[in-house]
């Protein structure tokens, strides 16, 4: 049985209590993308400033549970300063981690969707969110900010 400790790792609680890159950026030059989780009412705004090819600034506002808020916080630290393409790779890698079936967790790196796994991407602290897949209802919480970032990148670069 998956216990609470699998879900609420210390690093997650730390990002929840002390969120990084929290707040709003001026639009323009930044771009704002908004995401909703209709299940629980969580909402997130991702402010994204793309300078040339690089994410030069990013911040998060909105409200949500510890999983959605910490995931958003960790996401900002993971993509800040990265190029848009690098950010896309991190997004893909994170979403792949969130789509692995809970039963296959231990030592397995294959992806049930059959897509190519991003082999060279280290998710670092984000690995702490791996336990979320054992709680399927919470996957949407963890991916909310990421889907919103994905949408924001599409909107700014299209």
């Amino acid at each position, binding site marked *: *049985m998956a*216990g*609470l400790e699998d*879900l*609420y790792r*210390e*690093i997650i*609680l*730390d990002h929840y*209590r002390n969120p990084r890159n929290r707040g709003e950026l001026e639009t323009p030059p930044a771009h704002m993308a908004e995401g909703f989780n209709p*299940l*629980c*009412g*969580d*909402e997130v705004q991702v402010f994204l400033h793309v300078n040339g090819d690089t994410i030069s600034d990013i911040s998060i506002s909105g*409200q*949500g*549970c*510890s*999983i959605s808020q910490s995931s958003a916080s960790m996401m900002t630290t993971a993509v800040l300063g990265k190029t848009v393409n690098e950010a896309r790779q991190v997004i893909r890698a994170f979403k792949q981690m969130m789509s692995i079936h809970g039963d296959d967790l231990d030592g397995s790196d294959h992806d049930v969707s059959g897509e190519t796994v991003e082999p060279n991407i280290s998710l670092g602290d984000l690995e702490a969110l791996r336990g979320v897949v054992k*709680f399927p209802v*919470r996957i949407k*919480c963890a991916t909310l900010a990421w889907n919103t970032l994905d949408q924001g990148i599409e909107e700014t670069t299209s």
Partner: protein
Amino acid sequence: MSASANNVADTPLDVAAIKADFPLLSRQVNGQQIVYLDSAATSQKPRQVLNALNSYYEEINANVHRGAYQIAEQATSATEEARAHLQRFINAPSDNEIVFTKNATEAINLVAYSWGRTNLNEGDSVLITALEHHANIVPWQQLATERGVEIRWLPITDDGCLDMVDLEQMLDGVSLFAFSAASNVLGTLTPVRHLADAAHAAGALCLVDASQAVPHLLTDVTEWDCDFMAFTGHKMCGPTGIGVLWGRAELLDAMPPFLGGGEMILNVTREGFIPNELPWKFEAGTPPIAEIIGLGSAVSYLESIGMDAVRAHEVALTDYALCTLKERHGDDLIIHGPAATGDRGGVLSICYRDVHPHDLSQVLDQRGICVRAGHHCAKPLMKVLGVGATARASLYIYNDKTDVDLLSDALAEAGEFFSHQPA
């Protein structure tokens, strides 16, 4: 136990015996005995209802209003007996006013499509309240978009009751007043008869969303003097997929059919169709026969307990919950909605410290406790309350003081877990 909790009236129900009627309540989740506190979302089902569903399929499964053979006649009469039973249960004047729908949402949509699109045009208004579930908001918003119908919102007071100071003024020129009898978020019971009288005095009709009322208290459409009432079966010990629209016969008669197809016609030619009589005019296609029979059985089950006893039990248990939770958790706990149990049902929307409701329900789940976390399909109300979400514990006939105590313990545990500072 506290002195105040000791003063709480005792339940008239034999809860242990009732619990034993519900097979699901004997199971474990996450290694714990289940504590089901989400009956406002859907109730559990007693063995009597499950048996009724089974016997239909095992003994009289046949389509209704069609075959002349024995089991078809038995299925038809079982369906129509259930309809008559529902009529008696809500004290409706006639069983042809009982229209079976998929759920309360479909019942309200039926009125919005059939009555609304016949009678409402640009410049007309519908009054709803700040308490409403999305089911009693969105169908009217669709009419607003399509027809330019104005939607007015009756506000609520700080303690979650309807603010009726400007009711008369807000009803001025309104064609329909659509409101819930009981809030699915705050538990607020609204003064239905008073609201219906006010609507009629203003020349408006009224529709009552009674989804959270019919399972919990004596419902009497004649006493309420309303015009339409919608409710759903699965919150009152019945199966999913079956709801009821009750409407005054003269109103239903004047309304065009909602969905077209079999069952709802008297005759069809290449040139057109003649709609069937009430209530079948509004029941296109093969109805959910097993579910109708199951709902009839659920009504029998509730009647065997007695709706007055159901209400008395819930008042006593809600009182106990409000007293003990507040006493133990003090300012850590906010319970939204009316403070007096006379004004509310057993729905407790809670915020605990700064623990997000989603996280709270996760911790509770580890203790086998099922509560709902989120906006409860009432986002405009959440905005009024100034919160994005709440955790909602809702009580029913099979809940007892132990369930409330376990909830209370688990809240303390959740508070502990989330206040633990990382190293």
